[in-house]
């Protein structure tokens, strides 16, 4: 340890000899790494798996059951109520939840100003399928209609100034509802259950309403809907359940490969039966997309971030090249000292330990500079691409990866120059 402290001391002396080239090397590396860090943050967060333990068990089923002929068509990415009913007529799936989102207004009494809220209209399994934490109260016991809402903690605090508001009454678009539960702080990023609508980069919804109640209250989807007839679906409560109004997302949990195979067979049989009954003329095209593949399936990857990733990687390479060049000049100007140390008995391995001390110092300064530059870069990208703002945080695995990259870059920048400096004719270098 004492020897390593000595190596650090020698490194500091080396910096003091030529502070400007050293500062320039650090600056170039910091800028290259900082820009890379900023982009890597978004890239990592946008492509992260929010439920790694079950993202291969949650599936989004789609079937081409439209009442018109369409060959080589993809199935609609939203389903009708009646199709959901048909897809639910099996107990193969461990859990299943249909859902959609709508907008509404919420207030405690008619005298208060209404608070605009985003409503997720769904079924009880939604909460267990997507690991939503409950802070107070309990989830609806079944999927039947009920004038009950589940609030997020933030919504409860906004409306009541506290979180424990189970049993409190509210007006949802002037209909009386009771709070049955309050969720703990929760933000699934990305919100993959909403990827078919390309809403997976947005905030979570404010309140949750049973699906049947949503239909009874005539809430239409605020994101994506399709219909294949002229029915006026504004009267969702009377027309929505039987008509061809497609607005629902549907997720099933299939825990084992056997369940997944059985569900695929079930979908195949269902579509064949529907075709035989003359309800759709198209060739069957069933899809069962796993949650981990859903963004790719719907083409929801951010092309901006991908392009930035490539550009920042190239920029980092240019910075590494320049920093290496500067570092090489610095080491070659110190070559005499390397040779003297070798002449006095230092082995190349001992000189490499000296280099490791140089790397540590350089990594330390570079990491500080890169984190500052990265932070500034993230703030700038939040201004340029506000839709990605939820994906700008650093978590521990990301931070450790970034630190490892910074260390590796510092090592690369130091490795070749120090090797160059520690080889060569001792006698010649000592004369110079």
């Amino acid at each position, binding site marked *: 340890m*004492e020897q390593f402290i*000595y190596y650090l001391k020698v490194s500091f*002396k080396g910096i003091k000899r030529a502070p400007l080239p050293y500062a320039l090397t650090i600056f170039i590396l910091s800028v290259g790494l900082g820009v890379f860090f900023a982009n890597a943050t978004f890239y990592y967060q946008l492509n992260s798996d929010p439920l790694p333990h079950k993202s291969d068990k949650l599936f989004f089923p789609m079937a081409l059951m439209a009442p018109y002929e369409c060959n080589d068509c993809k199935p609609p990415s939203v389903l009708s109520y009646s199709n959901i009913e048909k897809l639910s007529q099996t107990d193969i799936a461990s859990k299943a939840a249909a859902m959609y989102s709508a907008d509404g207004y919420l207030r405690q009494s008619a005298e208060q100003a209404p608070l605009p809220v985003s409503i997720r209209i769904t079924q009880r399994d939604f909460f267990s399928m997507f690991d939503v934490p409950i802070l107070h109260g309990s989830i609806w016991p079944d999927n039947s209609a009920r004038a009950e809402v589940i609030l997020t903690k933030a919504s409860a605090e906004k409306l009541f100034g506290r979180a424990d508001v189970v049993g409190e009454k509210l007006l949802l678009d002037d209909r009386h509802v009771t709070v049955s539960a309050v969720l703990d702080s929760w933000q699934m990023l990305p919100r993959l259950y909403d990827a078919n609508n390309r809403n997976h980069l947005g905030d979570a919804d404010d309140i949750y309403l049973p699906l049947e109640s949503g239909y009874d209250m005539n809430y239409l989807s605020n994101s994506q809907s399709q219909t294949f007839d002229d029915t006026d679906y504004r009267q969702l409560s009377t027309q929505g359940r039987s008509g061809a109004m497609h607005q629902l997302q549907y997720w099933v949990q299939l825990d084992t490969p056997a369940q997944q195979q059985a569900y695929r067979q079930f979908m195949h049989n269902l579509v064949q039966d529907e075709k035989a009954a003359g309800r759709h003329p198209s060739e069957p095209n069933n899809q069962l997309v796993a949650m981990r593949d859903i963004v790719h399936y719907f083409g929801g990857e951010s092309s901006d971030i991908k392009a930035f990733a490539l550009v920042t990687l190239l920029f980092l390479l240019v910075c590494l090249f320049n920093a290496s060049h500067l570092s090489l000049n610095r080491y070659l100007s110190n070559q005499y000292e390397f040779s*003297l140390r070798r*002449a006095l008995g230092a082995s190349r*391995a*001992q000189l490499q330990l000296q280099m490791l001390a140089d790397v540590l110092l350089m990594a330390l300064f570079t990491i500080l500079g890169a984190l500052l530059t990265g932070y500034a870069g993230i703030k700038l990208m939040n201004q340029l691409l506000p839709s990605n703002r939820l994906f700008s945080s650093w978590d521990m695995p990301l931070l450790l990866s970034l630190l490892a990259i910074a260390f590796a870059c510092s090592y690369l920048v130091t490795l070749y120059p120090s090797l160059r400096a520690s080889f060569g004719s001792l*006698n010649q270098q000592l004369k110079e």
Partner: protein
Amino acid sequence: MITLTNLSKIFRTELIETHALREVNLQVNEGEFAALTGPSGSGKSTLLNILGTLESFDSGDYLLDGKSVKGLSDAALSKLRNEKIGFIFQSFNLIKDFSIYDNIELPLRYRGLKASARKQRIEQALELVGLHARRDYLPGQLSGGQQQRVAIARAIAGQPRILLADEPTGNLDSLMARQVMELLEQINQQGCTILMVTHDPDQARRAGRNIQIIDGQLHDATMYDPLAAQSA
């Protein structure tokens, strides 16, 4: 102690080959003080550098304490330089922003000695060269003679068995040169073998043996006879 057998060294460039040393045979015994003399470019420094393992050779063999240095690994050569050989360079080769103490400490650091052992050896060496009071000075604050004494202290602090000095007084005035020579003689009297490159006949006379090199060949490897020199 040192045995060179048919040792040759050729410097090659794209156009020419220069035979720096040709078939050199030499035996140096423990405790000798030998001067390497000869005209500029004759191969003196090359020989010294090969003896110090700072430079490789092309053919022949070099035995140190009966063991060939040919084919030794970098780590083994470093260890050999660190433990058995001390260097004194014409231009001192001190690190300018290291204190005198830190400069002398360098070879001891690479030997892995503990701080207390290093301190004891450095202080002994500083006592010997008479610079104990200046241990915290930087080399630039010392005269040329003092800097060379620091270089000597660095060379002897590791208690080497061989001291290789390449024109140690080349950059010093006559007074300083005499002090350095007296110091080397004192070190030799303590049992350390010294090989010294010099152009100065007086200094060569003070060494016990004069080895002349002309055009890369050893011309006279006899013991220097001070009485014969006086009568001449």
